[in-house]
C-alpha cells in the first residue's frame, strides 16, 4: 500500500481525533512504528490492521470512517493542495464529475507509483450520474463518496449520493444533482500560489 494512502489515514485521524487516538491504534495494530512515510510503500496488511484498530477504537463502521476520510481529504485546511488539484478537474461540478475518468491517470502523472482504481462516470440524465469504482483498493468507493460530497460543497452544488452496491466487480455510487448552483461555493484561483 502506498505510503501516501497510509499517510492520509494518519493525517485524518490526528487532525480529527487527536494524536493519542492514532498512537493507540498503531499499538493495537502492532505496527511497530507510529509514523507512516508518505513516499515509501508498505505491506497492505499493515493498512488493514490499522484501519481495523481505528474502527474498533472509534466504534464506527469502516465505510463511515472512510467516507469521513474522503471528506477530510478535500475539505480540511491541511489538505488545501489536494482540493486545488481536484478543482483543476473542471469549472463546474458536472465537469468535475466527468474529469474523474482521468483521475487515476492524473494521479500517476504526479506520483508514478501510486496506482488508484479506475473510475468511470455514466451519465443517465443531466441530473443523474453513476460512478463506477473498479476493484483493487478495498473501501475506495467509500472514500470517493466522501470526496464527492465535499467537492459538491466546494462547487456550491446540492447533490444526493447513495451507494448502489456492486455491479460486476465495480462499486457503484449514484449521484443525483439537485441543484448545480445551490450555494456560492468556494473560490478557486488558478494562479494562487503558496507564499
Amino acid at each position, binding site marked *: 500500500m502506498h505510503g501516501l494512502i497510509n499517510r492520509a489515514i494518519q493525517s485524518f485521524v490526528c487532525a480529527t481525533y487527536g494524536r493519542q487516538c492514532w498512537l493507540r491504534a498503531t499499538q493495537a495494530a502492532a505496527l511497530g512504528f507510529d509514523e507512516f512515510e508518505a513516499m515509501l510503500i508498505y505491506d497492505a496488511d499493515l493498512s488493514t490492521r490499522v484501519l481495523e484498530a481505528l474502527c474498533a477504537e472509534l466504534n464506527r463502521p469502516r465505510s463511515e470512517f472512510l467516507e469521513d476520510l474522503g471528506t477530510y481529504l478535500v475539505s480540511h485546511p491541511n489538505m488545501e*493542495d489536494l482540493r486545488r488539484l481536484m478543482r483543476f478537474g473542471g469549472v463546474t461540478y458536472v465537469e468535475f464529475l466527468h474529469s474523474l475518468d482521468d483521475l487515476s491517470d492524473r494521479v500517476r502523472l*504526479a506520483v508514478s507509483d501510486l496506482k488508484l482504481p479506475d473510475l468511470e462516470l455514466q451519465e443517465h440524465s443531466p441530473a443523474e450520474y453513476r460512478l463506477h469504482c473498479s476493484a483493487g483498493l478495498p473501501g475506495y468507493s467509500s472514500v470517493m463518496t466522501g470526496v464527492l460530497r465535499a467537492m459538491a460543497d466546494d462547487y456550491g452544488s446540492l447533490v444526493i449520493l447513495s451507494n448502489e452496491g456492486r455491479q460486476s466487480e465495480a462499486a457503484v455510487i449514484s449521484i443525483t444533482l439537485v441543484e448545480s448552483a445551490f450555494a456560492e461555493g468556494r473560490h478557486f484561483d*488558478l*494562479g*494562487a500560489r503558496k507564499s
Partner: protein
Amino acid sequence: MIKSEDLGKLLNTLCPMFVLVDDAGGVTQVGPTLQKLRPDQCMMGQSFLDIFELVRPRSITTVAQMLTAPDRKLHLRFQDRPQTAFKGLIAPLPGGAGAVVNLSFGISILDAVRDYALTSADFSGTDLAIELLYLVEANSAAMEASRSLNLRLQGAMLAAEEQAYTDTLTGLKNRRAMDHILGHLISMKSTFALMHLDLDFFKSVNDRLGHAAGDYVLRQAAEIMLEETRSDDTVARVGGDEFVLIFKGMTDREKLGGIARRLISRLCQPMKFEGSPCQVSASVGTALSTQFDVPKAVDILHAADLALYAAKRSGRSCHRFYSDLLGAQQSG
C-alpha cells in the same frame, strides 16, 4: 475566400490569443484572452510593434520583415509592464493581406495566470495550459512529501553517525570507540600499551595538493597501521592526523619499539596521489599501563602525549617511551 471578421470569429474559438495584422503592421483584430491582459488599452488600431517588443529573432525590426521572415517563430514581450513574455507563430494571409500571429505564454504561464487572474475559460479547450498548471502543483506537492522524508532520513543518519564507532574516512575506530575500549581495558585490569601517533608534514600535503590528496594519505596510513598490528589491537583515528593504537596484553618495550620503527619507516615512504608524490612521516609516543599504580584513561593518554611531544622535539620520525621521559626527568 473567408472574410476577415469570419476569420476573427473562428480564431476566437481556436486560439483566443491571436492577433490579426494588416500588411502595414496595424492590429485589426485581437483574441479575447489577449485583450484581457490589457483591459484598459484597446489593441485594435494600434501598431503591432507598439504593443509588442520583438525579442528574437533580433534581425527583425520592422513589420515588413516580420511578415516575410523565413523562420515563423517569434519571441515577444509586452512593451509596457508587466512585460509578460510570449511565444508567437506567424502565418501570413494569402495575397499579402497581412498575417495571423498566434501567441502563447510558454513558460511564463505560471506568472501570467496570477498576474492577470486567468481562468480555464481563457484557454482554448485543447490548450494544455491547465494540465501544465495541474502538473506543476501536483509535482510540488509530491516533491514536498519526498523532501520531508529526505530531511527525516538525513536527521536519522546524523544521529546514527553520532553514535557510530567508525571513522568514515579511514574505516578505523573513532575517538568514541577508542574511549570505550580504553575504559573497558582499565575496568578489566588488563595490561596494555598505548601509542599516540601523529603524521608529520600532513598539513603541507593538504595545503599543497588539496583535501583529496590528504584523504588519500590518511587512508594509506590507516592501512599501514592495520597491517602492522594484530587483529585484536585497536587502531583509532582520534583527530585530523592523529592516531591512537592500543596493544592489549603487550608491555614488552622491545616489541613495541620494533612496531613503532616499522610504522615510522613505512609511513615515511613517499606515496603517490594522481602522480604527485606525498611525503609524510610519523612521530610516536608510547605509554604502558603498567607504569601506573591506578591506571586512568586520561593519565595514560596524557603520558603518551608527553612522549609524542618529546619524540617531535627530537626531530621527526622518532619514537619515545614515556618511561624514558621520566628517567630523563629524574636524572636531569
